[in-house]
């Protein structure tokens, strides 16, 4: 049984509104990034894989099992929703233990796995803390620990780095990479930096459709030779913004170092730069909408 997720011609509707249009994806072991704006359909797609939403049209299978066989899928999938918490009056250990029982782990297994996982997410000293006393970052880490409690072959994490401070975020990414060594980790985010740091394969969703699927490197190479930077005045920046897509800028006194996308060299002072994921993502989003 191979560790693969196959999505074929998936369409999802909320009433009349179409949330996913004809999605086709194949996801293999390792980190897989789902990128897109808020409301692009990332959460819907993840919920379908996690059996939280019924498939409207099309076929989704996890390790060869159709997602409609929810019970079997749940054994293999760990899920961390975007917003979650746990019974606030329970301690960290109790909450893990409770979810462990629900995952069908027997007492010995729970006793063995929970401390190990808490150590992995660096919560071993907080296991007697009440859930309501945890900080946002700690809660996220506890979330990851609960999602891999039953050693799933697929881990789905929805916007896990939202609300984390930069340091927490780096730690969290590393943790996910570690976990992804032997399983599929699907990570959704609208923060490009997360993808850049962790994922090899990605898909970009826009308004329910997959507008890109492939490696990060390929995505970047699409933008090669189209990223320029120039030091311009603040007033010039306004003009530049009208004609080009500015992907980042750096304020230098009265001037601004702007980084922008252009099909060819726009003016003499513009310097060609090496493209990054952020540039590529912006390029993709705007070409897709016919804005470039």
């Amino acid at each position, binding site marked *: 049984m191979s560790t693969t997720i196959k999505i074929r011609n998936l369409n999802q509707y909320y009433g009349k509104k179409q949330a996913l249009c004809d999605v086709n994806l194949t996801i293999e072991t390792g980190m897989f990034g789902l990128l897109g704006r808020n409301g692009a359909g990332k959460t819907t797609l993840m919920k379908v894989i996690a059996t939280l939403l019924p498939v409207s049209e099309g076929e989704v299978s996890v390790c060869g099992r159709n997602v409609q066989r929810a019970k079997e899928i749940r054994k293999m999938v760990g899920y961390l929703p975007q917003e979650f918490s*746990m*019974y606030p009056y329970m301690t960290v250990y109790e909450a893990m233990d409770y979810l462990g029982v*629900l995952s*069908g782990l027997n007492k010995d297994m729970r006793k063995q796995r929970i401390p190990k996982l808490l150590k992995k997410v660096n919560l071993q000293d907080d296991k007697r803390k009440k859930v309501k006393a945890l900080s946002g970052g700690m809660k996220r880490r506890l979330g990851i620990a609960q999602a891999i409690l039953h050693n799933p072959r697929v881990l789905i994490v929805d916007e896990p780095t939202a609300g984390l401070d930069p340091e927490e975020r780096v730690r969290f990414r590393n943790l996910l990479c570690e976990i992804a060594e032997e399983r599929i980790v699907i990570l959704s985010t609208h923060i490009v930096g997360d993808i850049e740091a962790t994922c090899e394969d990605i898909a970009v969703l826009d308004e329910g459709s997959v507008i890109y699927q492939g490696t990060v490197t390929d995505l970047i190479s699409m933008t090669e030779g189209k990223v320029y930077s120039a030091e311009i005045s603040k007033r010039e920046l306004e003009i530049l913004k009208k004609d080009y897509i500015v992907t980042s800028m750096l304020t230098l006194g009265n001037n601004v170092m702007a980084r922008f996308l252009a099909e060819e060299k726009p003016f003499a002072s513009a310097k060609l730069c090496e493209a990054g994921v952020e540039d590529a993502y912006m390029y993709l989003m705007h070409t897709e909408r016919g804005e470039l």
Partner: protein
Amino acid sequence: MPVLLQLFIKECKQTARSLIYWAIVLILIFDFTSQLGDMEIDRKPEPGQAEYGMKQCDDPEIIMRSALGQLTEEYYRESYTTYPIGFYKNVTLNEKDDQKIGEILREAAGIASREEAGKVMEEWYSASNTASADRFAAEGITDIEYIADTADITDTENMVNIEDFSGGEGPIYQESLKVEPVKGLTYERFAELMDQVDKILGGGSHYNKEYREHDAEIPMTYEDALEEYNTLIEKDRLTGGYARLFSDYMVIFLGILPVFLSVTRGLRDRRASMQELIYTRRCSSFTIIASRYLAMIVMLTLPVLIISINPLSQCISYAQTAGIKADPFAFVKYIIGWQLPTIMIVTAVGMFLTELTDTAVAVLVQGAWWFITVFAGIGSLDGGAYGWTLVPRHNTEMNWQGFHDGFAQLAANRAVYAGAALLLMAFTAWIYSEKRKGRLQIRGKILANRKNKS
């Protein structure tokens, strides 16, 4: 250890930590102490007591006299008490209907006018006043004020018999007005006339078959009282009677309190934003729901069992001194047979509606059900007529005969509720499993639709 059992233990622990659970326990303790806290075990009746209480009777003569007495009184007051769906309703008639009742009263009792009815009332009033004065004098009580108070004719009809609901203060029995039927009135014709009266009054009056037979009460003699007492200690071994009385009081509160616990439990996952973490576990929906349900049932039954130790020990210690062989398991039997089905169905209603709607609407539904049930039950407090009520009443330690006669009905009633509860539980599990798969999200839909409209 199977998952169900492990989850069950965890759920019990959670329940034991919840505020609402302890609030419910406190209310149950309060219920017990306020109603049965100063319970006194009945002593053997002695000959020569002033009175021994009342009993029902199936003699047509007495039924006729009692119903006609009631009709005379109500006709005189121009106000009739009915219980159309078991709920008190006062009926005042228009002229035409009033005349019809007057005619019926004349045919059945020979009372020709309202004045004549008034005269009958007055005679009865002064006679019963003298009788109770005699009785109080015999007991050495000379507080005439008090006697006049209880015998005030404008106050004889207590509106919702609150006293009956709470078991009353003590037996101050007063024989109700009896009126002789006219000579030659057959029981059949009497029944016909009374059915007519009931129809005029809109049903549920004292004159329909069920009520008029129930209303015909006669004072018990020493022999009657002794026989009933003997039944209590022989058939019921003392404990049975008191276990029924205990059940009667507890079941009133158990007809509503469990819903608060199960609604709170049902809303807890959403409130803690934990739903999706639980939804994606491999554990089956049936196991999750069943473990919660069982935990609530057990945790609710436990305090009742513990409270019952008090009346049980009183019964046993009295039984020892009186040489009665008490049944130490009587209370357990009655709690399981009588109270548990109510706990089960009320909990299930709460769980079902909460899972279905994700709101506290079950409180409202159960509140309404409880309200109607309790008011409807006021007519049949003494036991025997258990019907299909959620809260079977038997507000006396006596009346083993009534219990015995109504037992089949009671057993059917309890079995139906227990069965319905399990069915609802299974249905809840089904709803839960659908919700896990993203279907049947009623609350989400309502909210989403609202958003669209605005």
